[in-house]
């Protein structure tokens, strides 16, 4: 009965379709940000000291590194190296958590400096968008944990690694969103 008209696995196609809808979601938020930043009479961009560019740069590096460890985990399972796969997955998740930790510290710092979600449009957008991104990160961490546990149980090997790939796609997408948010909030 099982028949596939295109040869693309359902899961991969579904994941890409989901990601394209995510592009629309973040696209809508970022367009709202762009137009209000251009058009609003009082956008309230805070001084650079509050934003903390160096810390955010470190965070960007953390996330990029987690992306490369993720893809290395996939490469490892494609070569049937479960041990290396597990190591890279753990590393990815740890880096993800580091990112969230630094983010939490940044939030704390900003709120204590008076930049809150209701203090002005910049603060509102900053907390909304990075908060949404952080929620996506948490979702990614859960997905990763699921993949890691199944991998340790020996569910994946060089012929069956689809779910590792899907988790990777999602994780890279979250990274990709941050690559756009970083200059949007910290650099310009």
């Amino acid at each position: 009965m099982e028949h596939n008209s295109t040869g693309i696995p359902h899961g991969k196609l579904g994941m890409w379709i989901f990601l394209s809808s995510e592009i629309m979601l973040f696209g809508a938020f970022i367009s709202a940000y762009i137009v209000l930043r251009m058009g609003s009479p009082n956008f309230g961009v805070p001084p650079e000291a509050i934003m903390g560019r160096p810390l955010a740069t470190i965070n960007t590096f953390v996330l990029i590194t987690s992306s490369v460890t993720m893809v290395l985990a996939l490469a490892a399972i494609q070569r049937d190296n479960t041990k290396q796969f597990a190591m890279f997955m753990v590393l990815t998740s740890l880096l993800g958590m580091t990112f969230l930790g630094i983010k939490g510290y940044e939030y704390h710092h900003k709120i204590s400096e008076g930049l809150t979600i209701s203090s002005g449009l910049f603060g509102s957008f900053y907390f909304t968008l990075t908060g949404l991104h952080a929620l996506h990160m948490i979702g990614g961490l859960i997905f990763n944990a699921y993949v890691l546990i199944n991998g340790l149980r020996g569910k994946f090997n060089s012929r069956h690694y689809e779910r590792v790939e899907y988790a990777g796609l999602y994780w890279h997408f979250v990274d990709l969103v941050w690559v756009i948010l970083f200059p949007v909030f910290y650099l310009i």
Partner: protein
Amino acid sequence: MSSSPEHHEPSFIRKYVFSLDHKTIGLQYMFTSLTFLLFGFGLMLLMRWQLAFPGKPIPIIGGLFGDTFAPGGIMLPEFYNQLGAMHGTIMVFLGVVPLGVGFYGNYFLPLQIGAGDMAFPRLNMMSYWIYFMGGVLMLSSFLMPGGAAQSGWTSYPPLSVIAPPGQTMWLISMTFIITSSLFGSINFIVTTVNMRAPGLNWMRLPVFVWAQFITAILLLFAFPVLQAGAILQLLDRVAGTSFYLPAGLVVSGTLLNRAGGGSALLYQHLFWFLAHPEVYVLILPAMGIVAEILATNTRKPLFGYKTIVRSIMFLGVLSFVVWAHHMFLSGMKTSLARIFMVTTMVISIPSVAILSCYVFSLWGASIRFRVPMLFALAFLPLFGIGGLTGLPLGFLPTDIYLHDTYYVIGHFHYVVVTGSLIALMGGIYHWFPKIFGRSMNEFWGKVHFWGTVVCMNGIFFPMFIQGLAGMQRRLYDPTVQAHNATTQILSPFQLLAAVSLLVFQFPFIINLFVSLFKGQKTVENPWEATTLEWACPSPPPHGNFLSLPQVNRGPYEYSVPGMKKDWSAQNE
């Protein structure tokens, strides 16, 4: 993902409540959305009473609403606004779309492409239950302090931001509905792309499948934008942000303590970016159903299959670039209005093309006037009225006067009710034998048809007259304004038509349930139709097809010259 070959009877809950079978999920969608439609219809009856007899106590059930909504049975303006907002929301998001996409798409899309189930059955089940929870939340918002959402189904800020807590509930339940549609559309797209039976290439797909496929794409790309708009509005309400609030708002004498700087128009853009494609989400499944019914009952191929398919695709793309025609008078840049007038005029061409192809399909036909065909035939002129009356609204000079009047209401009700809903009802008659293996009563079907069509016109046609007289939308008591009092005489007539419409739904409801248990048993393919869903047993078993169908020809090969019977099924 493949179904296990062993046959063990699943438990009741697995089989009927948390079922993974696309057919059960489809039926869950059908019964839920029909219930919501009836509920939304009830809200409309209350509003029509208030419009027909402003300030008079609601008869019979007036006492049930209590002092917060209708003291002494007399409706309060707040309650009227809640009814208006909830009628729109329920009918669009909980009624017509789940019926057209949730039920028809879920049930017939896999059948028509010869698949055993959806690509992701678990996601499908989640999609239904999230929709169900969203619906329950939406209804329960009537119990919130201050009642349900009352800023119109469009929920324009700043009004919606300063509205009572029911609005928060509306936003949360919209989030549920959006998530549900997202899951559904991913499922539909993957199923259509990946699970077509061997030989069923893109140009052999029935128009219905094309319509559902494009609809899923529209939902996929349009809904996230409303999601964003709704989240921003939610934060404006609960987190003290001011995305949509400019500085210095003074509400009932007190200065609002917000940072300000936002734009009220931003929400309108984000909302209509969804809500215009949403119109095509409402109408495309209906067009697909009409195509199926027409081909079956004219006993000939559809006229211009390729033109229809291309027009549907064209509609899909264009529907994303016309949204601002809802905002011509919103204070939007006037130069932007020029662009959107042109795109709006252009989008009418593919609609005209589809409709003319349907009508030309009648030429040289051998028309069988059965109940589903009656509905499909009624769709053509009535949707035509709905479409043509849209032109003056897309046309800038006339829109200045007609915008936000009852003319608009008449226009989109002709499109959605006498267009979409009529086709969706016809589809139930058409596919009932497939779903339940029994057929519905023809006589009561005809009673239902004639009563429904006449009454619908009785409600909506006077709206054009009222709109041309300048009567604005969403008025609790139009007679307060002198220019609206002139057309007040039409309102009791509309109430009468609305009540009769309710009465004429009873033959349908009773027919549906009686036929479900007592209807005449039918064969596999009672209409002698060609598409794949008729090639599996009725009702289809779990897994649908006994063997994987092999498709050899296009979808509508009726009356092929030289054949003994007048239909050649796709899998023959």
